[in-house]
Protein backbone atom coordinates (compact mmCIF):
# COMPACT_ATOMS: atom_id res chain seq x y z
CA UNK A 1 0.00 0.00 0.00
CA UNK A 2 2.79 2.40 0.92
CA UNK A 3 4.32 1.76 -2.44
CA UNK A 4 1.04 2.54 -4.17
CA UNK A 5 0.83 5.85 -2.36
CA UNK A 6 4.38 6.55 -3.35
CA UNK A 7 3.59 5.84 -7.00
CA UNK A 8 0.51 8.01 -6.77
CA UNK A 9 2.56 10.91 -5.46
CA UNK A 10 4.97 10.57 -8.37
CA UNK A 11 2.19 10.71 -10.91
CA UNK A 12 0.49 13.49 -8.98
CA UNK A 13 3.71 15.50 -8.99
CA UNK A 14 4.08 15.21 -12.73
CA UNK A 15 0.42 16.05 -13.27
CA UNK A 16 0.93 19.13 -11.11
CA UNK A 17 3.95 20.32 -13.06
CA UNK A 18 2.07 20.00 -16.33
CA UNK A 19 -1.27 21.34 -15.11
CA UNK A 20 -0.07 24.67 -13.69
CA UNK A 21 0.42 26.18 -17.12
CA UNK A 22 -2.96 24.92 -18.29
CA UNK A 23 -4.68 26.25 -15.21
CA UNK A 24 -3.03 29.67 -15.44
CA UNK A 25 -3.79 30.01 -19.14
CA UNK A 26 -7.39 29.19 -18.48
CA UNK A 27 -7.78 31.24 -15.33
CA UNK A 28 -5.87 34.27 -16.47
CA UNK A 29 -6.63 34.43 -20.16
CA UNK A 30 -9.81 32.40 -20.48
CA UNK A 31 -8.17 30.22 -23.10
CA UNK A 32 -8.41 26.44 -23.25
CA UNK A 33 -4.98 25.61 -24.55
CA UNK A 34 -4.65 22.25 -26.30
CA UNK A 35 -1.22 23.14 -27.63
CA UNK A 36 0.03 22.59 -24.08
CA UNK A 37 0.02 18.87 -24.91
CA UNK A 38 2.32 19.51 -27.84
CA UNK A 39 4.89 21.31 -25.68
CA UNK A 40 4.78 18.39 -23.28
CA UNK A 41 5.48 15.97 -26.17
CA UNK A 42 8.26 18.21 -27.47
CA UNK A 43 9.92 17.98 -24.06
CA UNK A 44 9.70 14.20 -24.08
CA UNK A 45 10.88 13.71 -27.67
CA UNK A 46 13.73 16.15 -27.25
CA UNK A 47 15.10 14.28 -24.26
CA UNK A 48 14.80 11.08 -26.27
CA UNK A 49 16.63 12.61 -29.20
CA UNK A 50 19.51 14.05 -27.20
CA UNK A 51 19.94 10.93 -25.06
CA UNK A 52 19.50 8.19 -27.63
CA UNK A 53 21.03 9.91 -30.63
CA UNK A 54 23.65 12.18 -29.10
CA UNK A 55 24.46 10.30 -25.94
CA UNK A 56 23.96 13.29 -23.68
CA UNK A 57 23.14 12.49 -20.04
CA UNK A 58 19.67 12.91 -18.58
CA UNK A 59 20.16 16.05 -16.53
CA UNK A 60 21.80 18.03 -19.31
CA UNK A 61 19.22 16.55 -21.69
CA UNK A 62 16.41 17.77 -19.46
CA UNK A 63 17.83 21.29 -19.50
CA UNK A 64 18.15 21.18 -23.29
CA UNK A 65 14.60 19.85 -23.67
CA UNK A 66 13.14 22.66 -21.57
CA UNK A 67 15.16 25.25 -23.49
CA UNK A 68 14.11 23.77 -26.84
CA UNK A 69 10.46 24.12 -25.84
CA UNK A 70 10.76 27.86 -25.20
CA UNK A 71 10.94 29.06 -28.84
CA UNK A 72 7.94 26.86 -29.62
CA UNK A 73 5.84 28.27 -26.81
CA UNK A 74 7.01 31.77 -27.71
CA UNK A 75 5.77 31.30 -31.27
CA UNK A 76 2.50 29.73 -30.13
CA UNK A 77 1.94 32.61 -27.73
CA UNK A 78 2.76 35.28 -30.25
CA UNK A 79 0.88 33.95 -33.26
CA UNK A 80 -1.97 31.97 -31.73
CA UNK A 81 -2.73 32.70 -28.08
CA UNK A 82 -2.31 36.47 -28.25
CA UNK A 83 -4.82 36.65 -31.06
CA UNK A 84 -7.37 34.78 -29.03
CA UNK A 85 -7.70 37.24 -26.12
CA UNK A 86 -11.29 38.27 -25.84
CA UNK A 87 -12.44 35.88 -28.56
CA UNK A 88 -14.99 33.22 -27.76
CA UNK A 89 -13.71 30.09 -26.12
CA UNK A 90 -14.60 27.94 -29.15
CA UNK A 91 -12.05 29.77 -31.28
CA UNK A 92 -9.39 29.10 -28.69
CA UNK A 93 -10.23 25.41 -28.61
CA UNK A 94 -10.20 25.08 -32.40
CA UNK A 95 -7.03 27.10 -32.91
CA UNK A 96 -4.94 25.44 -30.20
CA UNK A 97 -6.30 22.03 -31.18
CA UNK A 98 -5.07 22.67 -34.70
CA UNK A 99 -1.62 23.45 -33.32
CA UNK A 100 -1.64 20.17 -31.41
CA UNK A 101 -2.67 18.20 -34.51
CA UNK A 102 0.05 19.79 -36.61
CA UNK A 103 2.54 18.93 -33.89
CA UNK A 104 1.40 15.31 -33.69
CA UNK A 105 1.87 14.92 -37.45
CA UNK A 106 5.28 16.53 -37.27
CA UNK A 107 6.29 14.08 -34.54
CA UNK A 108 5.05 11.13 -36.61
CA UNK A 109 6.98 12.42 -39.58
CA UNK A 110 10.22 12.84 -37.66
CA UNK A 111 10.15 9.93 -35.21
CA UNK A 112 7.52 7.58 -36.65
CA UNK A 113 4.32 6.41 -35.02
CA UNK A 114 5.63 3.52 -32.93
CA UNK A 115 6.23 3.96 -29.20
CA UNK A 116 9.77 4.71 -28.04
CA UNK A 117 11.08 3.74 -24.62
CA UNK A 118 13.40 5.72 -22.38
CA UNK A 119 15.08 3.78 -19.60
CA UNK A 120 15.17 4.89 -15.98
CA UNK A 121 17.99 7.45 -15.95
CA UNK A 122 18.97 6.67 -12.35
CA UNK A 123 18.43 2.94 -12.25
CA UNK A 124 18.86 2.67 -8.50
CA UNK A 125 16.24 1.64 -6.03
CA UNK A 126 16.19 2.44 -2.37
CA UNK A 127 15.20 -0.10 0.22
CA UNK A 128 12.69 1.41 2.61
CA UNK A 129 11.13 -0.88 5.23
CA UNK A 130 9.86 -3.76 3.16
CA UNK A 131 9.61 -2.05 -0.18
CA UNK A 132 11.76 -1.02 -3.07
CA UNK A 133 11.47 2.55 -4.26
CA UNK A 134 13.10 3.65 -7.48
CA UNK A 135 15.28 6.63 -6.63
CA UNK A 136 14.13 8.32 -9.82
CA UNK A 137 10.60 8.56 -8.52
CA UNK A 138 11.84 10.01 -5.25
CA UNK A 139 13.71 12.64 -7.21
CA UNK A 140 10.54 13.52 -9.09
CA UNK A 141 8.63 14.02 -5.85
CA UNK A 142 11.42 16.17 -4.48
CA UNK A 143 11.59 18.24 -7.62
CA UNK A 144 7.83 18.76 -7.58
CA UNK A 145 7.99 20.03 -4.02
CA UNK A 146 10.76 22.43 -5.01
CA UNK A 147 8.66 23.74 -7.90
CA UNK A 148 5.64 24.04 -5.64
CA UNK A 149 7.56 26.11 -3.09
CA UNK A 150 9.32 28.13 -5.79
CA UNK A 151 6.06 29.01 -7.49
CA UNK A 152 4.29 29.99 -4.32
CA UNK A 153 7.17 32.30 -3.42
CA UNK A 154 7.13 33.66 -6.94
CA UNK A 155 3.45 34.48 -6.77
CA UNK A 156 3.67 35.84 -3.26
CA UNK A 157 6.79 37.95 -3.46
CA UNK A 158 7.48 39.17 -6.95
CA UNK A 159 5.89 41.96 -8.90
CA UNK A 160 5.09 39.74 -11.85
CA UNK A 161 3.54 37.20 -9.52
CA UNK A 162 1.34 39.82 -7.88
CA UNK A 163 0.18 41.15 -11.23
CA UNK A 164 -0.73 37.67 -12.41
CA UNK A 165 -2.65 36.92 -9.22
CA UNK A 166 -4.50 40.21 -9.59
CA UNK A 167 -5.20 39.40 -13.24
CA UNK A 168 -6.62 36.02 -12.27
CA UNK A 169 -9.10 37.85 -10.07
CA UNK A 170 -10.07 40.72 -12.33
CA UNK A 171 -8.45 41.38 -15.69
CA UNK A 172 -10.26 44.64 -16.30
CA UNK A 173 -9.24 46.09 -12.98
CA UNK A 174 -5.57 45.36 -13.70
CA UNK A 175 -5.86 47.16 -17.02
CA UNK A 176 -7.58 49.96 -15.14
CA UNK A 177 -4.32 50.37 -13.23
CA UNK A 178 -2.48 51.06 -16.46
CA UNK A 179 -0.73 47.70 -16.46
CA UNK A 180 -0.22 45.98 -19.77
CA UNK A 181 -1.50 42.59 -18.73
CA UNK A 182 -0.88 40.80 -22.03
CA UNK A 183 2.86 41.18 -21.58
CA UNK A 184 2.77 39.53 -18.17
CA UNK A 185 0.48 36.79 -19.41
CA UNK A 186 2.98 36.04 -22.18
CA UNK A 187 5.74 35.62 -19.61
CA UNK A 188 3.61 33.33 -17.51
CA UNK A 189 2.49 31.39 -20.57
CA UNK A 190 6.07 30.61 -21.48
CA UNK A 191 6.88 29.69 -17.88
CA UNK A 192 3.89 27.32 -17.76
CA UNK A 193 4.89 25.80 -21.09
CA UNK A 194 8.47 25.26 -19.94
CA UNK A 195 7.07 23.36 -16.96
CA UNK A 196 4.96 21.24 -19.33
CA UNK A 197 8.12 20.37 -21.26
CA UNK A 198 9.80 19.47 -17.97
CA UNK A 199 6.80 17.28 -17.17
CA UNK A 200 7.27 15.51 -20.50
CA UNK A 201 10.92 14.94 -19.70
CA UNK A 202 10.18 13.57 -16.24
CA UNK A 203 7.34 11.32 -17.33
CA UNK A 204 9.04 9.71 -20.31
CA UNK A 205 11.20 7.22 -18.34
CA UNK A 206 8.11 6.07 -16.43
CA UNK A 207 5.90 5.60 -19.49
CA UNK A 208 6.74 5.45 -23.20
CA UNK A 209 6.85 8.07 -25.92
CA UNK A 210 4.25 8.05 -28.66
CA UNK A 211 2.95 10.79 -30.94
CA UNK A 212 -0.37 11.03 -29.12
CA UNK A 213 1.13 11.33 -25.65
CA UNK A 214 0.17 15.01 -25.63
CA UNK A 215 -3.53 14.23 -26.06
CA UNK A 216 -3.41 11.62 -23.41
CA UNK A 217 -1.81 13.76 -20.70
CA UNK A 218 -3.94 16.74 -21.64
CA UNK A 219 -7.17 14.97 -20.80
CA UNK A 220 -5.81 14.00 -17.40
CA UNK A 221 -4.61 17.54 -16.81
CA UNK A 222 -7.97 18.99 -17.78
CA UNK A 223 -9.42 16.80 -15.06
CA UNK A 224 -6.86 18.23 -12.61
CA UNK A 225 -7.66 21.80 -13.63
CA UNK A 226 -11.39 21.24 -13.38
CA UNK A 227 -11.18 19.56 -9.99
CA UNK A 228 -8.68 22.11 -8.66
CA UNK A 229 -10.49 25.14 -10.03
CA UNK A 230 -9.29 27.07 -13.04
CA UNK A 231 -6.52 29.45 -12.16
CA UNK A 232 -6.47 28.23 -8.57
CA UNK A 233 -2.84 27.39 -7.83
CA UNK A 234 -3.30 25.68 -4.52
CA UNK A 235 -6.33 23.81 -5.84
CA UNK A 236 -4.31 22.61 -8.80
CA UNK A 237 -1.64 21.16 -6.51
CA UNK A 238 -4.14 19.43 -4.26
CA UNK A 239 -6.13 18.08 -7.23
CA UNK A 240 -3.01 16.82 -8.99
CA UNK A 241 -1.79 14.82 -5.99
CA UNK A 242 -5.27 13.55 -5.15
CA UNK A 243 -5.92 12.37 -8.69
CA UNK A 244 -2.43 10.84 -8.85
CA UNK A 245 -3.31 8.84 -5.76
CA UNK A 246 -6.71 7.92 -7.19
CA UNK A 247 -4.97 6.60 -10.30
CA UNK A 248 -2.38 4.61 -8.38
CA UNK A 249 -4.81 3.08 -5.91
CA UNK A 250 -7.43 2.24 -8.53
CA UNK A 251 -4.71 0.85 -10.76
CA UNK A 252 -3.58 -1.48 -8.01
CA UNK A 253 -7.06 -2.87 -7.56
CA UNK A 254 -7.96 -3.08 -11.22
CA UNK A 255 -5.48 -1.68 -13.76
CA UNK A 256 -7.78 -0.76 -16.64
CA UNK A 257 -9.98 1.40 -14.41
CA UNK A 258 -7.16 3.68 -13.22
CA UNK A 259 -7.79 6.58 -15.57
CA UNK A 260 -11.52 6.10 -15.81
CA UNK A 261 -11.65 6.66 -12.05
CA UNK A 262 -10.07 10.09 -12.55
CA UNK A 263 -13.04 11.14 -14.66
CA UNK A 264 -15.47 9.67 -12.18
CA UNK A 265 -13.91 11.86 -9.50
CA UNK A 266 -14.02 14.84 -11.84
CA UNK A 267 -17.69 14.30 -12.61
CA UNK A 268 -18.41 13.93 -8.92
CA UNK A 269 -16.62 17.18 -8.08
CA UNK A 270 -18.50 18.98 -10.83
CA UNK A 271 -21.76 17.68 -9.45
CA UNK A 272 -21.22 18.72 -5.84
CA UNK A 273 -19.43 21.99 -6.43
CA UNK A 274 -21.68 25.04 -6.23
CA UNK A 275 -21.99 26.82 -9.54
CA UNK A 276 -19.92 29.95 -9.62
CA UNK A 277 -21.15 32.90 -11.58
Amino acid at each position, binding site marked *: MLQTIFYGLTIGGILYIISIGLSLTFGAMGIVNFSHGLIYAIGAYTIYAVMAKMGINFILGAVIAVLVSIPFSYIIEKYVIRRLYGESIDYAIIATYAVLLIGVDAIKWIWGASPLPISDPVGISIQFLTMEMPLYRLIIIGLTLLILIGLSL*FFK*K*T*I*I*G*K*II*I*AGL*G*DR*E*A*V*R*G*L*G*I*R*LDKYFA*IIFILGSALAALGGVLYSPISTLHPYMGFHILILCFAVVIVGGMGNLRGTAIAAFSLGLVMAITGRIWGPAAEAMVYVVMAFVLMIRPIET
Partner: protein
Amino acid sequence: MADTILLAKGVTKRFDGLTAVHNVTYEVKAGETAGIIGPNGAGKSTFFNLLTGFFIPDEGQIFYLGEEITRTPSYERVNRGIVRTFQLVSVFDTMTVLENMMLSRIRQGRDYRSKRRFFFKSVYHPDLVDECLQALDTLGIADKADIKTSDLSYGEKRELEIVIALSLNPKVLLLDEPFAGLSPIEIGHISRVVQQLSGKFAILIVEHKISKLVELVERLCVLNEGTLVCSGTPGKVICDPQVRECYWGKEETA
Protein backbone atom coordinates in the same frame (compact mmCIF):
# COMPACT_ATOMS: atom_id res chain seq x y z
CA MET B 1 -12.54 79.53 -21.53
CA ALA B 2 -11.47 76.16 -20.28
CA ASP B 3 -9.81 73.66 -22.60
CA THR B 4 -11.47 70.44 -23.55
CA ILE B 5 -9.61 67.52 -22.04
CA LEU B 6 -11.77 64.62 -23.17
CA LEU B 7 -14.11 64.63 -26.13
CA ALA B 8 -16.43 61.97 -27.50
CA LYS B 9 -17.65 62.76 -31.00
CA GLY B 10 -20.74 60.93 -32.18
CA VAL B 11 -19.87 57.64 -30.50
CA THR B 12 -22.10 54.61 -30.92
CA LYS B 13 -21.78 51.17 -29.36
CA ARG B 14 -24.00 48.23 -30.21
CA PHE B 15 -24.30 44.81 -28.60
CA ASP B 16 -25.94 42.32 -30.97
CA GLY B 17 -28.65 44.65 -32.22
CA LEU B 18 -29.03 46.55 -28.94
CA THR B 19 -27.67 50.07 -29.23
CA ALA B 20 -26.28 50.79 -25.76
CA VAL B 21 -24.79 54.18 -26.67
CA HIS B 22 -26.21 56.06 -29.62
CA ASN B 23 -24.42 58.92 -31.36
CA VAL B 24 -23.28 60.63 -28.17
CA THR B 25 -21.21 63.78 -28.38
CA TYR B 26 -19.86 64.89 -25.04
CA GLU B 27 -16.92 66.84 -23.72
CA VAL B 28 -15.16 67.17 -20.40
CA LYS B 29 -13.31 70.41 -19.76
CA ALA B 30 -10.05 70.59 -17.85
CA GLY B 31 -10.63 71.04 -14.14
CA GLU B 32 -14.41 70.79 -14.14
CA THR B 33 -16.54 68.38 -12.17
CA ALA B 34 -19.31 67.06 -14.39
CA GLY B 35 -22.00 64.46 -13.96
CA ILE B 36 -24.07 62.15 -16.08
CA ILE B 37 -27.25 60.64 -14.72
CA GLY B 38 -29.54 58.10 -16.24
CA PRO B 39 -31.69 55.14 -15.26
CA ASN B 40 -30.30 51.62 -15.08
CA GLY B 41 -29.40 50.32 -18.51
CA ALA B 42 -29.17 53.80 -19.98
CA GLY B 43 -25.68 53.09 -21.25
CA LYS B 44 -23.67 55.00 -18.65
CA SER B 45 -21.15 52.27 -17.94
CA THR B 46 -20.88 51.47 -21.62
CA PHE B 47 -20.08 55.12 -22.33
CA PHE B 48 -17.39 55.02 -19.65
CA ASN B 49 -15.97 51.90 -21.20
CA LEU B 50 -15.72 53.73 -24.51
CA LEU B 51 -13.93 56.69 -22.94
CA THR B 52 -11.49 54.44 -21.10
CA GLY B 53 -10.78 52.00 -23.90
CA PHE B 54 -12.46 48.92 -22.46
CA PHE B 55 -14.73 48.97 -25.52
CA ILE B 56 -14.01 50.35 -28.96
CA PRO B 57 -16.93 52.36 -30.43
CA ASP B 58 -18.63 51.06 -33.57
CA GLU B 59 -18.90 54.62 -34.81
CA GLY B 60 -17.49 57.97 -33.78
CA GLN B 61 -14.19 59.10 -32.33
CA ILE B 62 -12.68 59.92 -28.97
CA PHE B 63 -10.12 62.65 -28.39
CA TYR B 64 -7.91 63.31 -25.39
CA LEU B 65 -6.04 66.61 -25.18
CA GLY B 66 -6.70 67.08 -28.86
CA GLU B 67 -5.28 63.69 -29.88
CA GLU B 68 -7.42 60.89 -31.20
CA ILE B 69 -7.46 57.89 -28.83
CA THR B 70 -10.43 55.96 -30.24
CA ARG B 71 -8.43 52.74 -30.47
CA THR B 72 -5.75 53.35 -27.86
CA PRO B 73 -5.57 50.41 -25.43
CA SER B 74 -6.98 50.99 -21.96
CA TYR B 75 -3.69 50.62 -20.06
CA GLU B 76 -2.11 53.31 -22.20
CA ARG B 77 -5.00 55.68 -21.59
CA VAL B 78 -4.48 55.18 -17.86
CA ASN B 79 -0.82 55.99 -18.25
CA ARG B 80 -1.73 59.19 -20.04
CA GLY B 81 -4.06 60.24 -17.23
CA ILE B 82 -7.54 58.84 -17.94
CA VAL B 83 -8.26 56.98 -14.73
CA ARG B 84 -11.47 55.27 -13.71
CA THR B 85 -13.22 53.40 -10.94
CA PHE B 86 -15.75 50.66 -11.59
CA GLN B 87 -19.44 50.44 -10.81
CA LEU B 88 -18.82 47.28 -8.80
CA VAL B 89 -15.86 48.12 -6.59
CA SER B 90 -12.78 46.70 -8.14
CA VAL B 91 -10.08 45.84 -5.66
CA PHE B 92 -8.24 42.57 -5.43
CA ASP B 93 -9.88 40.64 -2.66
CA THR B 94 -7.19 38.03 -2.20
CA MET B 95 -4.58 40.66 -1.44
CA THR B 96 -3.95 43.02 1.45
CA VAL B 97 -4.75 46.71 1.27
CA LEU B 98 -1.03 47.47 0.95
CA GLU B 99 -0.57 45.00 -1.89
CA ASN B 100 -3.51 46.50 -3.73
CA MET B 101 -1.87 49.85 -3.38
CA MET B 102 1.45 48.54 -4.61
CA LEU B 103 -0.04 47.26 -7.83
CA SER B 104 -1.01 50.79 -8.71
CA ARG B 105 2.47 52.16 -8.05
CA ILE B 106 4.38 49.56 -10.03
CA ARG B 107 3.74 51.31 -13.29
CA GLN B 108 5.21 54.64 -12.24
CA GLY B 109 8.15 53.39 -10.26
CA ARG B 110 10.15 52.22 -13.20
CA ASP B 111 13.26 52.19 -11.05
CA TYR B 112 11.67 49.74 -8.61
CA ARG B 113 12.39 47.06 -11.13
CA SER B 114 15.81 47.24 -12.65
CA LYS B 115 15.79 45.33 -15.92
CA ARG B 116 18.45 43.00 -14.63
CA ARG B 117 16.32 41.47 -11.94
CA PHE B 118 12.99 42.14 -13.55
CA PHE B 119 11.74 38.59 -13.33
CA PHE B 120 12.41 38.06 -9.65
CA LYS B 121 12.08 41.63 -8.48
CA SER B 122 10.49 41.64 -5.07
CA VAL B 123 7.33 43.59 -4.61
CA TYR B 124 8.33 44.56 -1.07
CA HIS B 125 10.80 47.26 -1.95
CA PRO B 126 11.13 49.53 1.11
CA ASP B 127 10.66 52.75 -0.88
CA LEU B 128 7.59 51.35 -2.53
CA VAL B 129 6.13 50.25 0.79
CA ASP B 130 6.72 53.72 2.30
CA GLU B 131 5.13 55.47 -0.63
CA CYS B 132 2.07 53.27 -0.48
CA LEU B 133 1.63 53.76 3.24
CA GLN B 134 1.78 57.51 2.74
CA ALA B 135 -0.85 57.35 0.03
CA LEU B 136 -3.13 55.28 2.27
CA ASP B 137 -2.59 57.79 5.04
CA THR B 138 -4.07 60.61 2.95
CA LEU B 139 -7.46 58.97 3.45
CA GLY B 140 -6.60 57.81 6.94
CA ILE B 141 -6.58 54.10 6.18
CA ALA B 142 -2.85 53.41 6.64
CA ASP B 143 -3.64 51.39 9.76
CA LYS B 144 -5.54 48.93 7.58
CA ALA B 145 -2.53 48.26 5.35
CA ASP B 146 -2.07 44.64 6.33
CA ILE B 147 -5.72 43.66 6.33
CA LYS B 148 -6.98 41.38 3.60
CA THR B 149 -9.12 43.48 1.30
CA SER B 150 -11.94 40.96 1.53
CA ASP B 151 -12.30 41.89 5.22
CA LEU B 152 -13.02 45.56 4.48
CA SER B 153 -16.55 46.92 4.38
CA TYR B 154 -17.90 47.85 0.98
CA GLY B 155 -17.48 51.53 1.78
CA GLU B 156 -13.85 51.03 2.79
CA LYS B 157 -13.22 49.15 -0.42
CA ARG B 158 -14.67 52.07 -2.35
CA GLU B 159 -12.33 54.43 -0.51
CA LEU B 160 -9.38 52.20 -1.26
CA GLU B 161 -10.37 52.10 -4.91
CA ILE B 162 -10.40 55.88 -4.99
CA VAL B 163 -7.01 56.17 -3.24
CA ILE B 164 -5.63 53.78 -5.82
CA ALA B 165 -7.15 55.77 -8.67
CA LEU B 166 -5.63 58.96 -7.24
CA SER B 167 -2.20 57.41 -7.01
CA LEU B 168 -2.35 56.88 -10.76
CA ASN B 169 -2.06 60.68 -11.20
CA PRO B 170 -5.27 61.29 -13.11
CA LYS B 171 -5.79 64.27 -15.38
CA VAL B 172 -9.38 63.18 -15.71
CA LEU B 173 -11.00 60.89 -13.15
CA LEU B 174 -14.07 58.89 -14.14
CA LEU B 175 -16.21 57.54 -11.30
CA ASP B 176 -18.83 54.96 -12.24
CA GLU B 177 -21.64 55.07 -9.65
CA PRO B 178 -19.29 55.71 -6.72
CA PHE B 179 -22.18 55.83 -4.25
CA ALA B 180 -23.90 52.61 -5.26
CA GLY B 181 -24.30 50.22 -2.36
CA LEU B 182 -23.04 52.63 0.29
CA SER B 183 -24.69 53.73 3.53
CA PRO B 184 -25.65 57.41 3.92
CA ILE B 185 -22.61 58.00 6.17
CA GLU B 186 -20.29 56.43 3.63
CA ILE B 187 -21.91 58.46 0.87
CA GLY B 188 -21.20 61.61 2.84
CA HIS B 189 -17.62 60.55 3.26
CA ILE B 190 -17.05 59.88 -0.42
CA SER B 191 -18.85 63.10 -1.34
CA ARG B 192 -16.45 65.07 0.79
CA VAL B 193 -13.50 63.37 -0.83
CA VAL B 194 -14.85 64.30 -4.25
CA GLN B 195 -15.43 67.89 -3.13
CA GLN B 196 -11.84 68.13 -1.94
CA LEU B 197 -10.58 66.86 -5.26
CA SER B 198 -12.78 69.16 -7.31
CA GLY B 199 -10.74 71.60 -9.34
CA LYS B 200 -7.48 69.66 -9.04
CA PHE B 201 -8.29 67.73 -12.20
CA ALA B 202 -11.35 67.00 -14.29
CA ILE B 203 -13.86 64.66 -12.68
CA LEU B 204 -16.75 62.92 -14.42
CA ILE B 205 -19.24 61.12 -12.23
CA VAL B 206 -21.91 58.79 -13.48
CA GLU B 207 -24.86 58.18 -11.18
CA HIS B 208 -28.17 56.48 -11.13
CA LYS B 209 -29.73 58.77 -8.55
CA ILE B 210 -29.83 62.46 -9.25
CA SER B 211 -29.89 63.68 -5.65
CA LYS B 212 -26.30 62.69 -4.85
CA LEU B 213 -24.89 64.70 -7.73
CA VAL B 214 -26.71 67.99 -7.46
CA GLU B 215 -24.30 69.46 -4.94
CA LEU B 216 -21.16 67.95 -6.41
CA VAL B 217 -21.18 68.88 -10.05
CA GLU B 218 -21.16 72.10 -12.02
CA ARG B 219 -22.75 70.57 -15.08
CA LEU B 220 -25.14 67.68 -15.45
CA CYS B 221 -26.23 65.62 -18.43
CA VAL B 222 -28.94 63.02 -18.74
CA LEU B 223 -28.43 59.84 -20.67
CA ASN B 224 -31.50 57.82 -21.57
CA GLU B 225 -31.59 54.72 -23.72
CA GLY B 226 -28.14 55.50 -25.03
CA THR B 227 -28.89 59.10 -26.05
CA LEU B 228 -28.01 62.37 -24.33
CA VAL B 229 -31.31 64.13 -23.73
CA CYS B 230 -30.49 67.19 -21.71
CA SER B 231 -27.55 69.14 -20.42
CA GLY B 232 -27.01 72.14 -18.18
CA THR B 233 -26.60 73.18 -14.55
CA PRO B 234 -28.04 70.68 -12.08
CA GLY B 235 -30.86 73.06 -11.18
CA LYS B 236 -31.92 73.43 -14.78
CA VAL B 237 -31.71 69.73 -15.53
CA ILE B 238 -33.84 68.76 -12.56
CA CYS B 239 -36.61 71.03 -13.79
CA ASP B 240 -36.49 69.93 -17.42
CA PRO B 241 -39.83 68.36 -18.37
CA GLN B 242 -38.19 65.87 -20.72
CA VAL B 243 -35.99 64.63 -17.89
CA ARG B 244 -38.91 64.34 -15.54
CA GLU B 245 -40.77 62.29 -18.07
CA CYS B 246 -38.06 59.77 -18.85
CA TYR B 247 -36.44 59.65 -15.47
CA TRP B 248 -38.21 61.16 -12.56
CA GLY B 249 -40.66 58.33 -12.01
CA LYS B 250 -37.84 55.92 -11.33
CA GLU B 251 -35.99 58.34 -9.10
CA GLU B 252 -35.93 58.29 -5.31
CA THR B 253 -37.70 54.98 -4.98
CA ALA B 254 -34.41 53.24 -4.31
